[in-house]
């Protein structure tokens, strides 16, 4: 056959559109059972009352599973199992405890894809984040604390520090697996046993983690997972035989817990809300600052306690930054959380969606200018467009209250002093960001910010070696790093902690 040698010409210049085809992660890798019991004493058991609640997929409102609802009786069983296991767990050498944690970390890595898919289904967050963020970071926390288990003499509490006993832990729905790892890893490394309650809208990865504990041959009772809503959490907090309470969640609930525990022997750490300032100076690396603003508030649909929800931008570059930010937000891809190209997933629950909607309506009513990129929202599920408010007054509700959604309030400043004053003018103090090419300005600003975490030229980065926690109404106590161990240990001469 003679080959054809004519040329195929280049087409005329027209603006093309390149719609990425759906690239869904296979969901079959994650098995979801119809019913889940409570994980107590190393096995799944039925709750005393036989009550259960449903967990749904926030992106489709599809019913996923029925999950046992634990009441005070079940919590009591779980605490008893943890107490029973505590003695043996404390007797193990640090290296032995470390061995179990390493095992959990490796198993989590091996089953990473399964956890990522399940987390995206149950929580609504994009698979890109669960795959590249939540799950690897959760494993990193287990690895890090596994390494501490036999080095506790160097934890800063003197030789031979003691575990507190049984830790009652209550975690939120925004990073279900990661928060579980943040809570369980330091508790176990330091010789405590735990009763942990995942949030009612996102129990599935915690229950899969229970399977991991079985697979790792973790001694029964060292980790107990009870599912339920606020009342179950309250039962853990109120239980007499719990030695330490660790809570991550809203400031209102945190305050209630602190009131309840006042006058008791129980130790408490709280990681609560935030309204972080992200300060952009006029000499910032603008393109990366815009990325940082996006990472700060639109990461995880803004369901992040340390989200950079208040953008403080120097007045001289306000218009340029806002223009670039808007152009950037047009490229965000909102939709199916399991699509590998999705940037913005679903809002976690109808209740949260309503709160976000109410607060943003207030923003408009208060005179701020509202903007969102054009993007279609799916018909089913809970969705909210990324939203930017400009012309926001320092006193506005959207500038002072935690929205916990993809909503950014833009404010301006003229001088570094003003930036710091405005950044600190909040009831919270969890995190802050600084964007400038000038190293001395980073240090000057960071010194003056009343926030537990200050990021410079980046935002929302988490590392197990770095302590995380708040000032003021953002809570107290630290998680991660050497400081995080102190929340689960007492000095050997501490009279309040008996062996």
């Amino acid at each position, binding site marked *: 056959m003679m*080959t*054809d*040698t*004519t*040329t*195929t*010409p*280049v*087409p005329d*210049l027209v*603006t*093309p*559109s*390149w*719609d*990425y*085809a*759906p*690239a869904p992660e296979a969901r079959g890798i994650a098995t979801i059972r119809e019913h889940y019991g409570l994980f107590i004493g190393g096995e799944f058991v039925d709750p005393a009352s036989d009550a259960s609640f449903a967990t749904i997929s926030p992106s489709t409102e599809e019913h996923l599973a029925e999950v046992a609802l634990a009441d005070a009786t079940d919590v009591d069983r779980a605490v008893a199992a943890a107490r029973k296991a505590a003695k043996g767990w404390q007797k193990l050498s640090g290296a032995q405890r470390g061995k179990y944690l390493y095992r959990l970390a490796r198993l989590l890595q091996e089953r990473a894809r399964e956890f990522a898919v399940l987390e995206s289904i149950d929580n609504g967050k994009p698979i*890109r984040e669960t795959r*590249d963020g939540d799950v690897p970071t959760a494993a990193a926390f287990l690895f890090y604390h596994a390494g501490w288990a036999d080095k506790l003499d160097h934890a800063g509490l003197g030789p031979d520090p003691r575990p507190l006993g049984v830790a009652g832990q209550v975690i939120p729905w925004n990073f279900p697996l990661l928060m579980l790892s943040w809570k369980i890893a330091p508790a176990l490394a330091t010789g405590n046993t735990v009763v942990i309650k995942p949030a009612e809208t996102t129990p599935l990865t915690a229950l899969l983690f229970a399977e991991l504990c079985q697979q790792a041959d973790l001694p029964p009772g060292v980790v107990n997972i009870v599912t339920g809503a606020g009342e179950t959490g309250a039962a853990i907090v109120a239980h007499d035989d719990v030695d330490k309470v660790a809570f991550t969640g809203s400031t209102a609930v945190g305050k209630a817990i602190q009131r309840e525990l006042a006058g008791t022997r129980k130790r408490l750490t709280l990681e609560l809300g935030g309204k972080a300032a992200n300060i952009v100076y006029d*000499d*910032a*690396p*603008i*393109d*990366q600052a815009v*990325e*940082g603003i996006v990472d700060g508030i639109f990461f995880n649909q803004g369901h992040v306690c340390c989200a950079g929800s208040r953008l403080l931008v120097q007045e001289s570059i306000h218009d340029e930054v806002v223009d670039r930010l808007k152009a950037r937000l047009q*490229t965000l891809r909102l939709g199916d959380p399991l699509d*590998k*190209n999705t940037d913005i997933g679903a809002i976690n629950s109808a209740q949260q969606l309503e709160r976000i909607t109410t607060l943003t309506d207030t923003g408009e009513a208060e005179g701020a200018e509202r903007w969102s990129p054009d993007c279609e929202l799916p018909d089913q599920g809970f969705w909210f467009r990324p939203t930017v408010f400009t012309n926001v007054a320092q006193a506005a509700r959207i500038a002072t209250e935690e929205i916990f959604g993809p909503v950014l309030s833009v404010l301006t400043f003229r001088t570094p002093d003003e930036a710091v004053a405005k950044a600190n003018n909040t009831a919270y103090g969890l995190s802050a960001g600084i964007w400038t*090419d000038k190293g001395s300005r980073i240090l000057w600003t960071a010194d003056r910010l009343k926030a537990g975490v200050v990021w410079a*030229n*980046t935002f929302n980065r988490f590392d197990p070696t770095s302590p995380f926690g708040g000032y003021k109404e953002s809570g107290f106590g630290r998680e991660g790093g050497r400081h995080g161990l102190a929340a689960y240990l007492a000095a050997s001469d501490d009279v309040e902690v008996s062996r």
Partner: protein
Amino acid sequence: MSLVLPADAGDLAEVTASETSLKRFLHGLPGVDQVGLEKRAATLATRSIKKDSKRWALDLAIRMVDLTTLEGADTPGKVRSLCAKARRPDPRDPDVPSVAAVCVYPDLVATAVEALQGTGIHVASVATAFPSGRSSLDIKLTDTRDAVAAGADEIDMVIDRGAFLSGRYGQVLEEIVAVKEACGDAHLKVILETGELATYDNVRRASWLALAGGGDFIKTSTGKVSPASTLPTTLVMLEAVRDFAAITGDIRGVKSAGGIRTAKDAIRYLVLVHEIAGADWLHPDRYRFGASSLLNDLLMQWHKQATGHYWTADRVTMD
């Protein structure tokens, strides 16, 4: 200094008026944070391009290739063979489009022009003492005029990295302007050789310098220096053409060259073009790949998409 700038560039024309103002302008460009830039490039590299969108991208990538041979051992025979491949990358399948251009050394331009007569495929020639650029301006201009006289309609020049790194920006600019003039109607691609510029701040400054000097394209590398093109450097350059277009209304192109060997890599670059510069740049007049072996992998992937089967590498021609 005469400049090839649109009349309404206003401020830009002023900033290139003196060495001092030029330096002030380039050093006043926003800095590039290395960590943030590389994170952004890495995140975009995780985009998963499947099915129709992949077929579309592979087709476009083939149309964007500057099929290149820049070896001391090049012969007219090899260039003719390359030109045949440029016209019909797969002689058995007329649906596979032609590439954008063939890129050769100046002495082989005439051969390529003859072989590509009437095809619409551009003939690009490297010039200006490629790849080092270490020669007098006169020689560089003669080099350029020779290539244009032989029929090249695209010239890939190199900037004087020595002058750039010493801060003699005016000299770099003047050379670009002079070469642009020597090009006549030929399109000018300005090679920054980012591997020798060392920092992303420098890549951004060199990009603006080349755009202000009238370069129709800014190009990452000669392919003779490692590292050649990388995703983050291309990202910075795409930001430069995007911002230049926003200020001047004038759309210039970017060419990533060197080290791009697989279809997977090429699609990652196209994602950058799409999401950083915008869909307007998804065209061979605005984005190119400088490559030799890339075309074969694109062909293999193209056929995988069309037939569902992978070819062995032996089924595609080496030249």
